[in-house]
């Protein structure tokens, strides 16, 4: 890398003075002068592109990988245990769906520099603004409770009391965000996302039939037993796990907080696409690890049980890694979901809402974030708390509100008055309305199954 000039605060005073003098004379373009922008100059085009991408990179990966949260680990592992490699093709099908939905969020975020909750409030009025806001907060809170339930479960299997593990995790999660630096939070979160590469190592360790897995990924096949009610609902669960309402709010707010520019659009799209690929890859690995349980004849109800039961066959590394990955998934889910709640709160009630702000300047925002985490942790620690009921409720409620949340997104993206050249093209609309129609059908089927359980029997 040839760096021939740095305009940073660390430059020598003389150099800065010379630059200011030139700028004052109007010798520089106004895009550079008169303010100093911290940056690096790179002559090599490829290297410049890579560095630019790395600066934009983050929101796309985080929003996708944080969706592989504790609930997702449970669903994918269960799907792998029940159907082996036969449902891998669904994940491949979900890859473009995830991308197309989040790509709309990217355009909206970059074009307006505002969060999703604010956008619904301003463009659809008070009723829809509040309705979306309350729905989001309820689903988010219940989801965070399930994340802490997973933390409690995983640490219990490692011999750590939930009374120590849950509060420690809660405090750690709060400290992670309350630093007054978006970049610090983003770097830590990206690191946690990349830790999920360990799922690949676990997959190689349990040695599934890679050829069969690849074949079932690219060639859709019906699992043995044909189309049953169980199969339909595991498919609904996979779809519901892979696409969640909080993701729309989270990524748009992240893009607004990171102040992504119009010129960052292509890099942000790439970030989102790579995030979607990474997430789907890891989800596939989770299915294959779940399949290993069935290969060894293990019956389990949650991934923590599977991790413990696999230890005699695959060693203690696999057991500990799986339990820690469960915790990691829950931590990622919690920080992303709590932040989406806190950003929405700030946007709707006009409070300062930015990770770039120190605590004293955004007490409402950080306070709401901390409140979500502490309240959810407290619920998990209540003896006899109805966690199964909460898990059921969160899955169905998320399923009910997801299609409508995407409808608002779709309507906003057709708002040419607001978005101009960033608005949806005709092909965008065809793709997105098709996605919405499928999600609506799945949502109706899920709601019907839960609310009227005898309907399909």
């Amino acid at each position, binding site marked *: 890398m040839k760096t*021939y*000039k740095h*305009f940073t605060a660390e430059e020598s005073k003389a150099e800065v003075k010379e630059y200011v003098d*030139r700028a004052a*004379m109007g*010798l*520089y*373009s106004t*895009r*550079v*002068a008169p*303010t100093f*922008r*911290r*940056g*690096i*100059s*790179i*002559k090599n085009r490829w290297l*410049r592109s890579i*560095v*630019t991408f790395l*600066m*934009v990179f983050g929101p796309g990966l985080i929003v996708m990988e944080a969706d592989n949260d504790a609930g997702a680990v449970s669903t994918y592992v269960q799907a792998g245990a029940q159907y082996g490699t036969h449902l891998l093709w669904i994940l491949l099908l979900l890859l473009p769906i995830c991308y197309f939905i989040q790509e709309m969020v990217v355009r909206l975020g970059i*074009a*307006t*520099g*505002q969060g999703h909750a604010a*956008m619904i409030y*301003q*463009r*659809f*009025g008070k*009723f*829809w603004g509040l*309705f979306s806001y309350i*729905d989001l907060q309820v689903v988010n809170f219940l989801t965070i409770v399930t994340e802490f339930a997973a933390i409690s479960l995983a640490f219990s299997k490692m011999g750590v009391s939930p009374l120590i593990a849950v509060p420690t995790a809660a405090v750690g999660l709060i400290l992670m965000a309350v630093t007054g630096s978006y*970049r610090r939070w983003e770097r830590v979160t990206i690191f946690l996302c990349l830790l999920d590469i360990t799922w690949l190592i676990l997959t190689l360790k349990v040695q599934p039939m890679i050829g069969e897995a690849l074949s079932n990924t690219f060639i859709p096949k019906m699992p043995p037993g044909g189309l049953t009610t169980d199969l339909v609902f595991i498919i609904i669960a996979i779809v519901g796990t892979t696409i969640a309402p909080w993701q729309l709010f989270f990524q748009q707010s992240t893009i607004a907080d*990171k*102040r*992504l*520019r*119009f010129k*960052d659009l292509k890099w942000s799209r790439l970030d989102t696409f790579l995030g979607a690929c990474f997430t789907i890859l890891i989800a596939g690995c989770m299915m294959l690890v779940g399949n290993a349980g069935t290969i060894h004849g293990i019956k389990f109800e949650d991934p923590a049980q599977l991790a413990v039961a696999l230890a005699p066959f695959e060693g203690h590394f696999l057991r500990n890694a799986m339990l820690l990955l469960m915790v990691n998934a829950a931590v990622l889910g919690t920080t992303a979901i709590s932040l989406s709640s806190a950003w929405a709160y700030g946007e709707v009630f006009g409070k300062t809402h930015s990770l*770039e702000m120190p605590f004293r300047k955004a007490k409402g925002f950080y306070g709401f974030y901390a409140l979500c985490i502490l309240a959810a942790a407290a619920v998990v620690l209540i003896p006899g708390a*109805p966690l199964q*009921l909460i898990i*059921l*409720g969160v899955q169905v*409620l998320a399923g*009910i509100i997801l299609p409508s949340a995407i409808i608002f997104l779709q*309507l*906003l993206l057709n708002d040419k*008055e*607001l*978005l101009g050249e*960033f608005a949806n093209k005709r092909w965008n609309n065809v793709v997105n309305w098709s996605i919405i129609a499928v999600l609506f059908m799945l949502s109706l089927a899920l*709601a019907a199954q*839960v*609310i009227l359980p005898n309907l399909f029997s």
Partner: protein
Amino acid sequence: MTPSRTNSYANELDEYLVIHPLDDEPELKKDPSKLGPLKLTPTVRISLFMLRGYLILMTVMLLYHLLDIAGVFRR
């Protein structure tokens, strides 16, 4: 250094400069607050009205179902 030479030097710098979005000057974005509520066609308005009914109904049914499972109505 002549102004023209300096300008080309500046443009060259600008072209090669890679700046983190948080260190860059804020951009003027499209502001929805100036536009007011979205103008909806009657079809979209009716669809949203139906969606509102669907969401309220489903939420109430779900709540009832969860309370039923929790045994609230059996006491």
